């Protein structure tokens, strides 16, 4: 293993200067200062069954300076352009390179509807008071652990989405976060707020092209107000050297719905937390994720739904393919709190093993403190069914193609959920490359 520089060279002075250089409001500078102080004291998180102590969380280049300016669509690298559908009037796209906004295509309709869809740097400057209400509030706390503190101290990119009351966005909001400098840290912060009875689809792509060591420390906080409906799609595909910590948390109020569809295709070590808090009565969460582990990567995925409100419904579906010597832990947790009567929590975790040396643990966990609820879980770890292979091959399909079809079919429940054709196709390609 490469030597890991465990020195943490970021102090209050550095953080203050960085914040001021970005023209951030005072409250954000203060948050960062608090965070940098906390970072020293707090411990790394302790994910169930994965040892992350040797992972690189500190060796990276934080501030990749240089003003790139805006790029034209055709100036975006090929690997980024393939994620975009053909240009259309309704499209809403933000592309960030190493945290900086470099491409923007926003529809007239979005502006008319009063929807905010801006990079986090602009949001802090121009919509600071609004951002302040949600930034690191109900969904994630700065002092959860060392990594949440690191994140706030050094946040260097991200997006703020604000959908006013009763606005129903038809076209998805698409973001692409791409690492260009091979050592650049991606400390990306996404805040999505959907006011009462509004509806929005947000889709993000994370990409990097270098195998050099770097760190991605990502937090998304997603707030669905009463009756709001948020679909959140994500496709992560960082290269091997990137150590990733990604927290995606949702907070759903009365009768609100948050749906996740995550394609977790990172090539490096990854710690992922996807939690939805069903705060209000009648709130719903649907958390779907697929991943493919290969090489020697180690990953830990927590999918967590917490039921507070009555009549809440939480669905967890995780499908994963493991090959080579990769190791992944899939913890699904349905937590039903006392008083969350008539709630329903269900989960399914399925892992397909393509190698005997790979490790895949599926752990469905039901934590129920209320009697008047329904809950269920299913988990399996297994190999490709030889009967399915025989069936497909008996129709002339080659062994390789049969395996490909079965794996695609296995991951389809999530891939099919993603809203944009280009992203679905790209994810399919990534899956293909990872499993072949």
């Amino acid at each position, binding site marked *: 293993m490469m030597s890991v520089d465990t020195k943490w060279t970021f102090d209050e002075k550095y953080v203050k200067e960085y914040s001021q250089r970005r023209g951030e409001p005072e409250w954000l500078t203060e948050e960062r200062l608090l965070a940098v102080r906390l970072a020293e004291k707090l411990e790394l998180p302790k994910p169930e069954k994965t040892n992350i102590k040797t992972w690189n969380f500190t060796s990276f280049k934080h501030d990749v300076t240089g003003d790139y300016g805006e790029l034209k669509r055709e100036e975006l690298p090929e690997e980024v352009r393939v994620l975009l559908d053909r240009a259309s009037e309704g499209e809403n796209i933000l592309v960030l390179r190493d945290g900086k906004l470099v491409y923007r295509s926003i529809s007239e309709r979005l502006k008319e509807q009063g929807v905010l869809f801006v990079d986090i740097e602009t949001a802090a400057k121009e919509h600071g008071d609004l951002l302040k209400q949600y930034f690191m509030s109900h969904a994630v706390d700065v002092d959860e652990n060392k990594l949440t503190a690191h994140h706030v101290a050094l946040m260097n990119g991200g997006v703020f989405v604000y959908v006013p009351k009763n606005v129903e966005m038809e076209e998805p909001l698409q973001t692409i976060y791409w690492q260009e400098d091979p050592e650049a840290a991606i400390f990306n912060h996404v805040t999505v707020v959907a006011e009462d009875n509004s509806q929005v689809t947000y889709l993000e792509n994370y990409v990097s092209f270098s195998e050099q060591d770097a760190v991605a420390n990502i937090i998304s906080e997603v707030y669905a107000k009463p009756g709001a409906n948020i679909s959140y799609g994500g496709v992560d595909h960082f290269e091997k050297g990137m150590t990733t910590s990604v927290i995606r948390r949702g907070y759903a109020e009365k009768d609100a719905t948050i749906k996740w569809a995550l394609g977790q295709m990172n090539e490096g070590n990854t710690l992922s937390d996807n939690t939805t808090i069903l705060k209000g009565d009648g709130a719903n969460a649907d958390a779907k994720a697929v991943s493919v582990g290969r090489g020697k990567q180690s990953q830990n995925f927590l999918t967590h739904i917490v039921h507070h409100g009555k009549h809440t419904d939480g669905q967890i579906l995780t499908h994963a393919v493991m090959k080579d010597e990769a190791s992944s832990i899939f913890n699904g947790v349905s937590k039903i709190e006392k008083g969350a009567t008539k709630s329903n929590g269900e989960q399914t975790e399925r892992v397909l093993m393509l190698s005997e040396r790979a490790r895949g643990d599926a752990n469905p966990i039901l934590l129920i403190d209320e009697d008047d609820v329904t809950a269920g879980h299913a988990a399996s770890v297994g190999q490709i*069914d*030889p*009967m*399915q292979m*025989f*069936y*497909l*091959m*008996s*129709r*002339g*399909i*080659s*062994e390789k*193609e*049969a395996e490909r*079809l*079965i794996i*695609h*079919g*296995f*991951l*389809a*429940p999530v891939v099919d959920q993603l809203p944009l054709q280009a992203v679905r196709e790209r994810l399919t390609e990534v899956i293909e490359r990872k499993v072949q």
Partner: protein
Amino acid sequence: MATPTLKIENLHVEVEGTEIIKDFNLEIKGGEIHAIMGPNGTGKSTLASAIMGHPKYTVTQGKVLLDGENILDMDVDERAKAGLFLGMQYPSEISGVTNSDFLRSAINTKRGEGNEISLMKFIRKMDEKMEQLEMDPSFAQRYLNEGFSGGEKKRNEILQLLMLEPKFAILDEIDSGLDIDALKVVANGVNSMRNPEFGCLIITHYQRLLNYITPDQVHVIMQGRIVKSGGAELAERLENEGYDWIKEELGIENEKVGEQEQEA
């Protein structure tokens, strides 16, 4: 095109160390439909699966020649590409793969790169064959066999047969679990394939399918080999009189395979 032939010579098949098929011989030519009948446990399904290359079955001796080429030397997919089709008794369910994508993939594999069927042509053909089999058009977009009833699965097997147009089809108990209407539809499907370039081996427990598909030859299998052959009238006699008269005629006490040794 020359008339295709499928020739099974001195075939022996084992399952987990027990010999199930013993010195099995049969020749089918294009244009012919043969039926293999026999009580349960006599090796009918083993024969079908082994010829296709099912991983559970081991061929210990013999050949299966398709137009002179021994298909037992081939992988399962190569056997299919050579022109063999097996309509299965228990088709697998494949989640996430639509019927239509699967079939197009199978057709194109057979046709080879650069010679793929056009999407329009494919859709038209699939629509036509589904209508012929009285299948709801929605089945094209459903995942392969997933959640299909027994009868729907059987229809889907015949749909694949009609779409893939093999030289030889082995239909393994394609009639089981079908009501009379479905049976007629399936039989019509098979009959529509009848031509000098297509041969078929129907494996069945009951004679009723043969009321709708008239076989050229009927073979009775016991103890893993053919013990009696005849024309369509043989099937009728079996329906009326059962199998006991054959056992008596041939002095067979136990028609099942892999049991008589232990009992002796």
